[in-house]
């Protein structure tokens, strides 16, 4: 019993991290992962609740206490098998899920103490499995003879692919870029999610039998209708994300040096621009960098610019620090790395030199007014109060919209006024045989929400493939 008392008091095992002054100049992963001892110690903090609320907080319903119990006993193979049953992307989710709002946010231990580090444990099990060569693959149902096309290869699509291949269907994933992973490869930086990890998760699905075809721009190289007719697919999942960049709409926005976060991050991550000239895609450094926006994409852009060697990197956000939409951990990481937060400011003009290169930005000072429809206090300009900052690299990270490439070429697919695809809770669209989920339905959200939407859609698609529309 003495041992049990000790177990309840054990503090949360911190994840070792690269020191801020070191990591701000390299692209290696910031948290370094648990050792087996750390993982076991942390796993033992789990109370193994009879009614685990953590599980309810997980959009893909991972049996959290079960996989943690396996780690506590040192049975890591058992842990990964538990995870794989519900999640095809554990190494990704363990790293980039906002656990504080999901599983860990519901953890009972967290009521009095810090919650069990579920994300860190998930990451540990997944990383362990990646290093293990002879691990058996999870079981698959007997072949059904049905063929499914999954369009896009981000977290939602990969979840659909993983779920349906295990239910015995043939699955082909179509990706427009030359590498699979969607936002996991073009958007999320190496220091948060190493690309070899995404590649390994995709490879896991390929070993399960999923076919991946890159360089396929669905809507252009092939249409959704052609997939359903000429190519003989029985169902299609559209998980194409919301990739249309938004700009602020102020003068000077097309100057050289003003980027969308999508372009900046794609150059950095997918094209490995930070390794120029070993890689051929250039990425500008900048001496005075301003990133506009306060979400996770803004944090990724800021921290990338810092790693490109800039010392003056500012997050310019139109509300106050309390309203920053990014995860707390990301803001904290950014601050530790030396990023300045320039809140209650909004860009009104970009100023260029004679060669059309950005040299400054004019900002409007803002104050917070009454709450708006989002429940947050509305930012309002303070009349007559502007300032000009030196700036040679500006990155616009104020969100993205729906790309019309697919909806334009797919008759019968209903879209709402913002161009997002209309679908029910299970992702079923107005077009027979077609499902959609993730950002292309809801607008920009998180990796795990896309995975959750994929899970619901996969169940609905499986029902359809078994019983009909």
């Amino acid at each position, binding site marked *: 019993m003495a041992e049990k008392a000790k177990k309840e008091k054990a503090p949360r095992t911190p994840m070792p991290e690269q020191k801020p002054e070191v990591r701000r100049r390299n692209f290696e992963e910031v948290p370094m992962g648990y050792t087996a001892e750390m993982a076991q110690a942390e796993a033992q903090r789990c109370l193994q609740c009879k009614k685990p609320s953590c599980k309810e907080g997980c959009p893909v319903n991972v049996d959290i206490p079960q996989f943690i119990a396996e780690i506590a006993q040192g049975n890591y193979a058992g842990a990964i098998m538990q995870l794989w049953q519900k999640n095809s992307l554990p190494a990704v989710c363990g790293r980039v899920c906002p656990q504080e709002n999901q599983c860990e946010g519901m953890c009972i231990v967290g009521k009095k103490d810090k919650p069990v580090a579920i994300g860190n444990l998930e990451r540990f099990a997944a990383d362990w499995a990646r290093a293990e060569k002879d691990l058996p693959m999870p079981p698959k149902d007997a072949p059904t003879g049905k063929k499914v096309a999954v369009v896009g290869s981000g977290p939602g699509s990969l979840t659909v692919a993983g779920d349906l291949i295990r239910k015995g269907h043939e699955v082909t994933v179509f990706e427009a870029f*030359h590498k699979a992973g969607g936002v996991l490869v073009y958007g999320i930086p190496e220091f948060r999610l190493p690309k070899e990890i995404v590649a390994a998760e995709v490879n896991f699905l390929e070993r399960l039998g999923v076919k991946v075809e890159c360089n396929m721009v669905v809507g*252009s190289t092939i249409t959704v209708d052609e997939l359903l007719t000429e190519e003989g697919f029985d169902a299609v999942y559209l998980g194409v994300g919301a990739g249309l960049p938004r700009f602020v709409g102020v003068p000077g926005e097309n100057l050289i040096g003003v980027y969308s976060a999508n372009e900046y991050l*794609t150059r950095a991550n997918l094209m490995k621009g930070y390794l*120029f000239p070993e890689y051929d895609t250039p990425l500008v450094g900048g001496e005075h960098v301003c990133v506009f926006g306060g979400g996770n994409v803004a944090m990724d852009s800021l921290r990338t610019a810092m790693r490109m060697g800039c010392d003056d990197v500012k997050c310019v956000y139109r509300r106050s620090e309390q309203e920053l939409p990014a995860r707390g951990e990301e803001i904290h990481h950014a601050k530790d790395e030396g990023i300045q937060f320039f809140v209650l400011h909004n860009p009104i003009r970009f100023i260029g030199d004679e060669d059309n290169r950005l040299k400054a930005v004019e900002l409007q000072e803002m104050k917070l007014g009454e709450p708006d429809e989002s429940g947050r206090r509305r930012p309002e300009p303070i009349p007559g109060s502007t300032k000009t900052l030196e700036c040679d690299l500006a990155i616009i990270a104020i969100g993205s919209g729906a790309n019309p*490439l697919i909806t334009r070429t797919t008759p019968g697919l209903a879209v709402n006024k913002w161009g997002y695809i209309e679908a029910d809770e299970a992702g079923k669209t107005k077009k027979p045989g077609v499902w959609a989920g993730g950002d292309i339905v809801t607008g920009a959200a998180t990796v795990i929400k896309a995975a959750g939407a994929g899970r619901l859609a996969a169940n609905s698609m499986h029902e359809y493939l078994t019983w009909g529309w």
Partner: protein
Amino acid sequence: MYKILAKRVLAQGTVVENEIEAPRIAAKAKPGQFVILRVNETGERIPLTMADTDPNRGTITIIYQVVGKTTALLKSLEVMDAIMDIAGPLGTPTPIEKKGTVICVGGGTGVAVLHPITRGFHQAGNKVISIIGARTKDLLIMEDKMKKASDEFYVCTDDGSYGHHGFVTDVLREQLTKLGSEVKEAVCIGPVPMMKFCSKVTEEYGVPTMVSLNAIMVDGTGMCGCCRVQVGGETKFACVDGPEFDAHKVDFEGLSKRLTAYVPQERQAMDRYEQKCACETKGK
């Protein structure tokens, strides 16, 4: 991987034509559309317009001038070598209709982009007058194919080594003066200054004109916003809204300047590549 089935060096060793196996793209491509390719694992993504397609053979033809590292690397590939990635067809196809008389003007490697459009207008029953030009005779490309796709055909060289001595704009002006309102549309494709001056001429004569813009791109599907251009005061994405636009509304100054965004890096990459090639040659 996309296999190279044929390679021809067209002009002064710097303009190259490749026929490449890409059946899905060949089946779909229409005049005016382009592909984005990546030569190898460390390569960048560059847009190239298709000069021709053969759906039966399942091939596309690209023509490019060696200007930097990526095109130099592309040129180093021989028949039966492969290009790592090609995505397409991208961009909005040229709206081709029967209009009457259409003038097609091409300069340098822009002629490669112009050719399928010219052929399209010709097949649609238009009277096609083509004017193509280059700095000097040896840089002139696709003369025969362009001649075949045209009812009237003119060649210009800046140095007078072949055809009319002077710019394509001279011949364009002559034709417009001669034909007047008979000309229903002009298509001008080539270097930015050429397109700019051609569109000034056609504007004087009130002839609707289309140009194809070679903006810097990354993804080519409207996702990064790198290729934005000002057209009629609005921001457009060359990759999905274009690459063709109303010439009389395009901000050519802005486009020229955006094209210089990476000049220092491009030079650095090219120098590095040439040094590496020199080392390898010595090694042999």
